[in-house]
């Protein structure tokens, strides 16, 4: 077998030969081909990811583990991570999405944490195309079909549409779990002489080399590669969750690792390398569901609902008992040994023998050339004077609300169980989702967002804006961002301009994370998101988690009350660049606003005080659709109108539809107006009008009843 058939580059092959001091055999070549694929090795992005801050007071576990963990106080931690499952979802939408959800849940479980909530980031092509509709329907059914059955509520997410996702939709799954800090299971704690155990489903030929499939562009050829798609079994996963948690509670396991990409080989070699031990694995002891599987197929199978356990032999019997109770297969198939040697034996013969540290860690990095796109400035050329003011403001607002990316996502999120486990205080359909922690006062707040359009116009600013949006959302809700996870969804890094965009996005995100003191604790990278039709927009997706100290310090959105005074806080000169307003007219142009760290930090502190001082009834940070969309959403969700006059010289369309900057809309009860003004003294803050009546009216612009707004927003 040629090394190129295994997907290896010449330098990589040479490195393997150098370390081994011999020719790798076929099984070894295939293993290394998958383990050194982009998906598993991060060879194109490892250096970029180093730019992210990942330390902080609250960080218990940072990147490099199954998921990150932040300290919630009093001995409890929140483990969370987001992961992409884009290529599988493009080829087999239901199964691709379902197994994406299943995989991220197991990542959380692998730390010993009980998964308590999920969110999903969905990016689809043109909503009117039948192709999009069938992909979207399959993906949504897959997310629900798996999440609902497994008993983890889907409490929030983001759904957006753009033609660039026509052939390459994105599915990013986020999961968060809770764990007592003294019960965290690590992948670094295996010692020589312990048993290597496989718990869960039998191993089959499904999903073989799926990681390699995820590391090339989608084409007509590989869309036929259905064996690369994994099949999900949420029932099996539910049993696996209960069994693993019971084993952890009884302290029966030394170390645990999810079998995700590259299955057995990836999970076991990772534990070996991180723990500094070797392994001898007997592949003929692994329960199989297909006949005559070759060792390399067993090694690389991505059959779902499997966990690797490292168990002290004295507990092996008890582990088997728990597995039996949950009717799960459980097989000891190897042991940990001194040294670095990772050996696969098959019917007594040595199928592969590699240094454990070589497999996962030592892939040569690729310094892809980076080039600033020549047409960047051209995209920025945008003169607002070329855009006429709306002739019919009512029509303009209604068509904006009907834009699928902005419209209500109720039809999607009602297909997800958002309440199971009884912790959901604020569920989907709100800027921030909130979970209570049983027996405590504090709430966990989380949000997931992306702005691919601004990232494509100015990747640095767009990256920073993406992070900032989530942090602002949390702050307005009363939560200080404690950490975030990200999925970096990008096209091929081999095109210098595309690599530059990736690089700049990461830099922008890192800048914002640093300013907010919000570390990146986990995440993943998905490259090669392109098809013969073209590349996707640069799509970094960010899931940010914060803590609200008590239910009293939480501020909801969409809870206006009659007589409330409306305030806009933040600058009055937002930008139409990359705005939903221009996009809904088919224009992707202009240069998004820069990230102003000082103003952003100032905003966060004031927003947190506003929430904890109960200075408002309702608050919403401005994002897609700007002030107009925020007014409409607040009005629709509250079921009451408002009268607003804007005595500001800014062009009215910019003021109403512009985006960017740290801005928010607050509804303040009359009695709290003085306090509110004190809290925002020194920050731009203008009084807009009063809540009341059946109409949402902005003087000199639109005037519509709440039911007219609702009808468009819900039904398009």
């Amino acid at each position, binding site marked *: 077998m040629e090394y190129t058939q295994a997907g290896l580059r010449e330098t990589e092959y040479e490195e393997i030969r150098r370390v081994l001091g011999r020719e790798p055999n076929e099984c070894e070549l295939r293993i290394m081909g998958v383990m050194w694929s982009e998906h598993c090795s991060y060879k194109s992005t490892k250096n970029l990811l180093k730019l992210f801050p990942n330390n902080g007071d609250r960080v218990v576990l940072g990147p490099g583990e199954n998921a990150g963990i932040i300290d919630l106080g009093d001995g409890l931690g929140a483990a969370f991570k987001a992961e992409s499952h884009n290529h599988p979802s493009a080829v087999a939408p239901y199964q691709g999405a379902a197994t994406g959800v299943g995989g991220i849940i197991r990542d959380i479980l692998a730390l010993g944490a009980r998964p308590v909530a999920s969110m999903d980031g969905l990016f689809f092509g043109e909503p009117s195309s039948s192709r999009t509709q069938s992909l979207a329907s399959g993906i949504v059914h897959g997310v629900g079909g798996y999440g609902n059955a497994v008993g983890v509520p889907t409490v929030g997410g983001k759904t957006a549409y753009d033609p660039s996702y026509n052939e390459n939709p994105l599915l990013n799954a986020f999961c968060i779990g809770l764990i007592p800090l003294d019960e965290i299971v690590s992948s670094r704690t295996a010692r020589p002489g312990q048993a290597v155990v496989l718990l869960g489903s039998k191993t089959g030929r499904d999903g073989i080399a799926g990681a390699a499939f995820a590391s090339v562009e989608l084409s007509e050829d590989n869309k036929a590669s259905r064996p690369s798609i994994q099949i999900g079994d949420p029932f099996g996963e539910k049993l696996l969750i209960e069994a693993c948690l019971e084993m952890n509670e009884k302290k029966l396991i030394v170390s645990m690792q999810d079998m995700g990409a590259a299955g057995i080989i990836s999970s076991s070699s990772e534990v070996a390398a991180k723990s500094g031990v070797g392994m001898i694995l007997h592949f003929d002891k692994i329960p199989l569901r297909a006949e005559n599987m070759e060792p390399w197929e067993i090694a690389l199978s991505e059959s779902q609902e499997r966990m690797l356990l490292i168990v002290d032999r004295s507990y092996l019997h008890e582990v088997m008992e728990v597995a039996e109770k949950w009717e799960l297969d459980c097989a000891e198939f190897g042991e940990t040994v001194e040294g670095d040697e990772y050996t696969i034996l098959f019917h007594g013969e040595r199928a592969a023998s590699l240094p454990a540290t070589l497999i996962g860690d030592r892939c040569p990095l690729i310094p892809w050339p980076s080039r600033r796109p020549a047409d960047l400035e051209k995209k920025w050329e945008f003169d607002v004077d070329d855009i006429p003011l709306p002739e019919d403001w009512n029509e303009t607002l209604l068509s904006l609300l009907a834009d699928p990316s902005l419209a209500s996502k109720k039809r999607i999120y009602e*297909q997800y169980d958002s309440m199971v486990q009884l912790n959901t205080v604020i569920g989907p359909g709100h800027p921030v989702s909130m979970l209570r922690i049983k027996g405590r006062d504090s709430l966990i707040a989380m949000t997931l967002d992306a702005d691919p359009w601004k990232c494509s116009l100015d990747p640095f600013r767009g990256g920073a804006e993406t992070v900032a949006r989530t942090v602002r959302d949390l702050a307005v809700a009363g939560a200080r961002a404690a950490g975030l996870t990200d999925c970096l969804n990008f096209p091929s890094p081999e095109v210098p301009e595309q690599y530059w965009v990736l690089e700049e996005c990461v830099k922008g995100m890192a800048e914002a994370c640093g300013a907010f003191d919000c570390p990146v604790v986990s995440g993943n990278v998905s490259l090669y998101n392109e098809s013969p039709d073209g590349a996707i927009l640069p799509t970094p997706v960010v899931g940010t988690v914060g803590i609200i100290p008590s239910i009293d310090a939480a501020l909801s959105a969409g809870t206006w009350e009659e007589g409330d005074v409306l305030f806009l806080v933040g600058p009055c000169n937002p930008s139409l660049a990359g705005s939903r307003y221009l996009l809904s007219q088919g224009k992707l142009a202009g240069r998004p606003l820069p990230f102003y760290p000082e103003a952003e930090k100032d905003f966060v502190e004031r927003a947190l005080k506003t929430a904890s001082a109960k200075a408002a009834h309702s608050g919403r940070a401005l994002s897609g659709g700007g002030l107009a969309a925020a007014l409409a959403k607040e009005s629709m969700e509250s079921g009451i109108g408002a009268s607003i006059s804007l005595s500001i010289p800014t062009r009215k369309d910019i003021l109403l539809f512009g985006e960017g900057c740290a801005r928010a809309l607050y509804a303040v009860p009359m009695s709290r107006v003085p306090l509110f003004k004190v809290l925002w003294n020194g920050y731009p803050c203008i009084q807009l009008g009063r809540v009341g009546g059946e109409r949402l009216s902005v003087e000199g612009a639109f005037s519509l009843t709440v039911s007219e707004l609702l009808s468009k927003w819900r039904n398009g």
Partner: protein
Amino acid sequence: MNTAVIVFPGSNCDQDVMHAVAGSLGTKVRAVWHKETTLPEDTDFVILPGGFSFGDYLRCGAMAARSPIMKAVAEHGRRGGLLLGICNGFQILTESRLLPGALLPNRTLNFVCRPCFLRVESVSTPFSSLFSKGQVVQFPIAHGDGLYTLPEEELKALEDRGGVVFRYSDSDGLTGDDANPNGSANNIAGIVNERGNILGLMPHPERASEALTGGEDGRVFWQSILESFTKGGR
């Protein structure tokens, strides 16, 4: 009143129900694994919780209806003991023939999860005695197979004997088609057997048992059961 919550592989509301009953009533609640063949001796009230027992890979509830514990559960019901099936538990009750009818896929063919209004149709059951007739309560729904159906004559018999306890409605108590989330016959959300001790309910009262998460109408539901039990000593 001692409550036993049966846990099947794939149940996912077992913990929630235990939390809600213990939190609303402060009474003793125990989990019972489906492979047991007897209920704890002092069991007064049995709950079959929601979820996806056996993955719903056969008809929903069909496998669970044949679990070892179900003989004892049926016996408990036959003796007149209080028995409640919520969501997947309702499906298990119909699959066990402890309640009439069947639950089919929602007419939209989509899973649906949202808060839902119900009109209380009968207050002469132990599960609804503290509500008032015609009262509108809010319990969330979360199911893919909630379309309740049974042959026309049986439906009429069920209605005639006052076996419908909860009906999907709007916030004003109107039971039009708009208020029917799944296409159930006559907007039926919950039914009771002739003797009145076995209730099947598609919506989730345990998700409406705390002000912070889903409201408190469910607490009245649990309190009804406790009061009926205390008075009647079933």
